[in-house]
């Protein structure tokens, strides 16, 4: 019997895995290279995906889907190796997939089944008994707020509902690693927020490792801990979101309710460099020191501004993404 990763309680007698492997890093890629004929889709990719939420971003054709397939052991690599919870997907694909849940980008439905039957089918294919599979299917569909729509045939469901069913099918067997390909595609803002909230819950409260392949950088910035940028089959950028979006000038961003223009003017009079953001809803304070902060508190009190937040300013992820794309190509050989 094995115990799953942190927070997970999946156990399985069918699969014998040494205990140290079960505690190992969720995903480790070492020099992964994949070629289709003469075309190299992944080239010497080194990366580690720790517990938490990781965003896998990149332009179309960057090799994201192939990387996901490599993690699942669906493709044969030209070089390098993949390790998922200490297991090699090429050697033990079924054991790996037992601990992984996947939400594909495309509608991957079994024609003729209803939403709940689809999730139950996924549960049974993953090894749950029939009745428990049905109970568990309803439980995760409830959590996904699927409502009575679950009893409709999957072919007739809306895009958002299909996405919920696909997500429920991916997590019904309580996997330790959940891989999602464009999970917020076709969702309205409310649903999108709810979906991201569920991912955060899985990662923070249940210790799951989440890998999101997406183009929506706003989603990545709002929930991801780490980012891996893949361009033309190579990792162009990788690291924590906090580190990647940190500004070089160490500016502070102040969000407040009240007359920010007056505050900026008052600070200017006292020779403290401050400016309003383009949308005029926040103020940036350059090179803060103890003296300038003392002046800031004085002026805030004098002008009657109510501070909402004061935090280090961060670059939008989109700027980081575009800058990385524009940067000259260089190989990444160190674990990302």
């Amino acid at each position: 019997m094995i115990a799953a990763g942190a927070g997970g309680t999946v156990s399985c007698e069918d699969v014998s895995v040494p205990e140290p492997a079960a505690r190992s890093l969720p995903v480790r890629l070492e020099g992964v290279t994949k070629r289709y004929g003469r075309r190299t889709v992944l080239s010497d990719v080194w990366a580690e995906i720790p517990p938490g939420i990781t965003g896998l971003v990149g332009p179309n054709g960057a090799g994201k889907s192939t990387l996901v397939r490599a993690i699942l052991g669906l493709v044969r690599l030209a070089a390098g190796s993949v390790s998922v919870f200490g297991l090699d997907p090429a050697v033990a694909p079924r054991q790996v997939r037992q601990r992984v849940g996947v939400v594909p980008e495309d509608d991957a439905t079994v024609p003729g089944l209803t939403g709940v039957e689809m999730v139950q089918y996924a549960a049974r294919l993953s090894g749950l008994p029939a009745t428990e599979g049905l109970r568990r299917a309803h439980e995760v569909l409830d959590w996904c707020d699927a409502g009575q729509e679950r009893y409709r045939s999957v072919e007739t469901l809306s895009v958002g509902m299909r996405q919920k069913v696909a997500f429920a099918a991916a997590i019904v067997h309580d996997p330790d690693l959940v891989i999602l390909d464009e999970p917020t595609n076709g969702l309205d803002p409310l649903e999108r927020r709810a979906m991201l909230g569920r991912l955060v819950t899985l990662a923070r409260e249940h210790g799951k490792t989440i890998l999101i392949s997406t183009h929506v950088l706003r989603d990545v910035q709002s929930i991801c801990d780490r980012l891996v940028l893949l361009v033309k089959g190579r990792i162009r950028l990788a690291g924590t979101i906090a580190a990647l979006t940190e500004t070089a000038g160490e500016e502070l961003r102040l969000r407040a309710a009240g007359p920010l223009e007056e505050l900026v003017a008052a600070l200017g009079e006292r020779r403290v460099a401050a400016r309003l953001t383009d949308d005029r809803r926040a103020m940036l304070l350059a090179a803060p020191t103890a003296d300038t902060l003392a002046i800031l508190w004085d002026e805030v009190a004098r002008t009657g501004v109510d501070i909402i937040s004061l935090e280090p300013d961060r670059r939008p992820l989109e700027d980081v993404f575009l800058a990385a794309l524009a940067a000259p190509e260089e190989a990444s050989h160190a674990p990302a």
Partner: protein
Amino acid sequence: MPLHDVGYRPWTGRLRPGGAAGVIATTGIRLTWKSRWLRRVLFFAWSPAVMFAAGFFAFEQALDEGVITAGRTAIGRLDGLQMIGSLVAESLGGRLDDPAEARRTVWSRLLLAFMRAPQAMLLAVVVGLVAPRLIADDLRAKAWLFYFTRPLSRFQYILGKFGVLAVIVSLVTLLPALALWLVGVLVSPSISVALATWDLPLRIAGAAVAVTLPTALLALAYSSLTAETRIATFAWFATWVACWIAHGALSAADATAQANPQASLTAADNAAEQAARPRPRPRPRRFSWLARAAGIDGSADRWAWLSLFHAQGVVQAWIFGIERRLAAVLPSLAMLTAVTFGSLGLLFLRVDAPARA
């Protein structure tokens, strides 16, 4: 939000994905059973069994009353049922002086005739209705992403899909044939007949396997080649028809050459061919047309291997002990084996090809 929403809870049970093939098969059967056309065809597929059951009954009655073994087979002296019973015995070539041997021979041939003439044709229709959808629909709906991102091997997937077809095909071939054997036992004078014919259920199972394996795997292989169900259906029926025509044309040419050897062969060639050709078996004395129509006359058919239907017939006749010349069976057996393994190989290459692309 539902009142009973308990949030996300980890699963604390045991995962046993070993039975995935069974899950695929049962789900596939449930989905397939939704087809009203299939249910109609399956219902219709059992109707020939009624006719054959009447044959069993008539034969057993005639045997029981001694009209067969006593040699009293002149039609004028028999009542209707006796006449049918003796006709069945005559046409199927049972030894009339030994009731046990006559029963064994007639039952075997009746069962083979049942599995050949109506059921094999219906089987082609049923498989044509079911099989093309099984994998092609998964390719069209991209369900391969659903399957192959789970702890499921290609073998389990193929086995599951094959299971769907095997169950459906069994409903057309295996189960009615077993039911017929049971009817035969029930209408016979003693239950000890079941012991005397104990091997027949096994032969029925063997004959059903000989039909199911190549047929189902070939149909599944066609289904795996395209996302368009129509194309797979067309390919399936086209194969049956084309093979049948090829077999018919070559057999007819043979028959013509045999009837007029000088037209196409020199005397030496003709003699050589006659020597090479297996000697025809003695045919049943009367009503041989009935045996021929049922495909159980056991005459030499050197082109049988060309046609799936005829090749299966030869192998089934061998399984039932009616065709005893292994040399005559081997080409058909080899062809069915090649179709089985070829289809299996194709399936292994194709079922998760999109995932690897």
